[in-house]
């Protein structure tokens, strides 16, 4: 009885108290967090207080929200009023936002109990959490391996049982890849489905907040709570949150599902084998599965590493020491800027700021940023063409299972390749999610990625639900 759906039901009906639930999870955190380091900040007192509030409301017969008493971990790039929000960067040292992100506000209203702020690659730039200024998070399934990134802390928190739910942000795969590495479900919704207000920006046109959970149904529940129009985000889609819970068990009978040919190339053979098996079980469940070419996806990585750094170079300009966070003591304004940013940002963040600044420079804009935007249009067009024949698409979430610490830190390009399968959905603004499906030769979990067209969350959750059912059945049989 560890799922969010079950906990919320038990708390609502008074079968369990939120206080019991939160103590259970805080106990788990106390036991394993010193080793795992999923959190930048554990909110034990606040969590107990929030749980007590929920219990009081239940006792008083007041209505409680859909996530009443459910422990939840927030990625530490989501603004929380009065609580440090660091982006795992020294540059935000000491800063407490004076406001809550829209998702945080919606979760409070829904009765969720925040247990902590989770570790990430600095400003969400990375695929392993090794770029955190506060040290890496360890993969709870094998502590010699990375949990993935950038939302590694959130993935690890769910995998370790610290909380049944967590929120992450996904710019190029930062929810889906760590979900795959940690053997949990991770969802990147359609761009604009979830408000970005209060999400500290990495690359604004790609960033999207989404759920982590152990089960597909829990992610559906969480997404229903956080999605829906927000007037504070101009890119928020003006329509209500979708209904997803029924989709999880709706099955895939009659769905047309395409296996993306380009994203099976250059993938570890054991991972590719799991994806083909996933295709087979969907086929057995009544879907029509075929291979399909989405040719432009192979250019996704190159386009992403121009667009994302370009936007980041601008988004991260404001960390200048003038108003908040770290400030170096220097004799004049230019020296203060330079010394603050030199001391406050880690090497990967600096690398991307330089890349992005270069890509936007006069004389280079057309060749780099402009060209990347054209590729982005091509990718969307190729996806659209595929969705004329298919309801959803399938690929690996990542080319490998969780790798060892240090394996890719010396070679940024190898690290970047970790996101090759996930980036195209961000560029197109489409939803995609990772569902655990078996393990690789190393015994580590493999994630299968389900992709859908814009606002195609319902069909995506149908496919994910079917994959989960098959994977669970296989585990039970084994």
């Amino acid at each position: 009885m560890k799922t969010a759906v079950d906990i919320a039901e038990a708390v609502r009906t008074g079968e369990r108290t939120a206080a019991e639930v939160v103590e259970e999870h805080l106990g788990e955190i106390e036991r394993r967090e010193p080793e795992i380091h999923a959190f930048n900040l554990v909110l034990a007192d606040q969590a107990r207080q929030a749980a007590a509030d929920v219990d009081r409301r239940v006792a008083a017969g007041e209505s409680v929200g859909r996530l009443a008493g459910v422990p939840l971990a927030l990625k530490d790039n989501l603004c929380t009023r009065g609580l440090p929000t660091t982006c795992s960067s020294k540059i935000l040292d000491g800063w407490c936002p004076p406001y809550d992100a829209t998702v945080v506000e919606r979760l409070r209203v829904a009765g969720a109990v925040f247990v902590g702020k989770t570790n990430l690659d600095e400003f969400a730039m990375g695929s392993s959490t090794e770029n955190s200024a506060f040290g890496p998070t360890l993969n709870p399934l094998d502590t010699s391996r990375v949990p993935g990134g950038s939302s590694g802390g959130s993935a690890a928190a769910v995998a370790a049982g610290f909380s049944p739910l967590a929120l992450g942000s996904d710019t190029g795969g930062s929810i889906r890849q760590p979900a795959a590495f940690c053997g949990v479900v991770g969802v990147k919704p359609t761009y604009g489905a979830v408000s970005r207000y209060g999400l500290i920006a990495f690359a604004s046109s790609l960033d999207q907040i989404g759920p982590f959970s152990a089960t597909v149904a829990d992610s559906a529940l969480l997404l229903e709570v956080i999605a829906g129009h927000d007037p504070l985000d101009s890119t928020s889609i003006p329509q209500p949150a979708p209904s997803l819970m029924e989709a999880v068990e709706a099955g895939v009978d009659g769905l047309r599902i395409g296996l993306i040919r380009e994203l099976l190339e250059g993938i570890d053979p054991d991972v590719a084998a799991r994806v083909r098996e996933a295709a087979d079980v969907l086929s057995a469940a009544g879907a029509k599965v075929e291979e399909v070419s989405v040719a432009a996806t192979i250019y996704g990585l190159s386009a992403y590493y121009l667009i994302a750094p370009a936007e980041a170079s601008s988004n991260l300009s404001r960390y200048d020491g003038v108003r908040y966070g770290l400030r170096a003591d220097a004799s004049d304004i230019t020296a203060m800027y330079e010394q603050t940013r030199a001391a406050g940002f880690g090497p990967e963040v600096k690398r991307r700021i330089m890349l992005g600044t270069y890509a936007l420079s006069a004389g280079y804009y057309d060749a780099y940023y402009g060209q990347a935007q054209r590729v982005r249009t091509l990718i969307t067009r190729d996806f659209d063409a595929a969705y004329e024949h298919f309801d959803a698409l399938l690929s690996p979430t990542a080319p490998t299972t969780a790798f060892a610490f240090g394996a890719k830190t010396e070679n940024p390009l190898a690290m970047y390749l970790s996101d090759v399968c996930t980036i195209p959905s961000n560029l197109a603004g489409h939803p995609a999610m990772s569902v655990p499906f078996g393990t690789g030769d190393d015994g580590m979990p493999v994630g299968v990625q389900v992709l859908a067209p814009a606002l195609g969350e319902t069909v995506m959750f149908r496919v994910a639900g079917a994959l989960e059912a098959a994977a669970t059945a296989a585990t039970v049989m084994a």
Partner: protein
Amino acid sequence: MSPDAAGRWEVVIGLEVHCELRTETKLFCGCRNAFGEEPNTNVCPVCLGLPGSLPVLNRQSVEYAMRIGEALHCDIRPSIFHRKNYFYPDMPKDYQVSQYDEPINSDGWLELPNGKRIGVTRAHMEEDTGKSTHMGGGGRIGDATHSLVDYNRAGVPLVEIVSEPEIGSAEEARAYVSELRAILVATGASDGKMEEGSLRVDANVSVRPRGSTALGTRCEIKNMNSLRSLGRAVEYETGRQIDLLESGDRVVQETRHWNEDEGRTSSMRSKEEADDYRYFPEPDLVPLAPDDQWRKAVRDSLAPMPSDRRRALASAAHTEPAAVALLVEQDLDGLVLAAIGAGADPRIALNRAANEVAADPDGAARLSAESFARVVTLEATGKLTATQSKQVLAAMLAGESDDPEAIAEDRGFEAMDTSALQAVVDQVIEANPGPWQRFLDGDPKVSGLFIGQVMKKTQGQADGKAVTRILQERRDG
């Protein structure tokens, strides 16, 4: 610079005018847009650029920008916002959200009172920065000991109006800004206050050999806080550039700072040092595409522009638009038009409005067109002399009454009857035989002497025109 040198060169000026929009709230957040309040009180996460905050476009500011576009005869097109990236402490995000290659308004024009049209390249929307005060040193950031920043102004909506390089003198530059200010005020988009920084003008100045069509190297002049300093700065800069070229030097493209006290411009930064702003489309905002219905509503809601008002008054008063420019600027054209409509003599109505009414703006506000028409008509029909008419009008402006006949009666003003006046004229002729002979010999200038004498004897009650008529009768009779 010698007069000869000035004759050999001509100046070409393009102006960039930043206009703060008088919206209730800022461009991207709900903070109040107000001038002169306690520093850093009208601020929030959005206009402070706090991490995680996002902009939401203010509809009123778009409406005002469209009004400006309509008033300047621009094409109003679908547009997008860009980020202009550079570091400065009073800019909270270290980028400014502005419009770049797809502005909301483009390709318009503005008509000066003299009828010349100046092209308007574009009028785009952007956010204002905060305001820095550099303490210690000379008031610039380089030599300051510390700086104070007020972010109340950060995020205030601006429209930047860029003219074509078609302005040919300092005087014309002033006329352009004066006309533009009147237009902006007429649209309701701006309060037009240069002294509060609601309107800020930068001038691109270059000179070229007279008659040449190529443009010379330009300098951008900043920090002109009034029409007067704009005129002075452009004059100074024109002279500086001509002197350079006359002595065989060249003009360096740069930004120059106008120093009002010293009356000269000095170099701020050269083009080589200029920032690369790394413009790119603002991903936090969506494209702006006002529909036809909205555009039509904006068009229909616009008050008449100064050039239309000048034309209307000039036509009604049988004169040239330039001759009534001041009246329109003083907002007295409505009064005069209504008086003419009520049958008043146009020439007298223009005269009384331009002099007596314009001199008393408070009184003008309560003067009804109908009473104004009546006093003008009393004068035109000779029932009151010009002097009497002015006194009656003054009493009306002072709020004594809005009934000119009653005031005239109260003062005992009656146009003198002809026989009484004839008697006075005859007395004056008798007392001045010499001048009378000259008048008879055909010297018209002497008539002034006679009129003056008659006025003196009648304490100004006589009608000058009637005196002239009697003098002519005596001469011809």
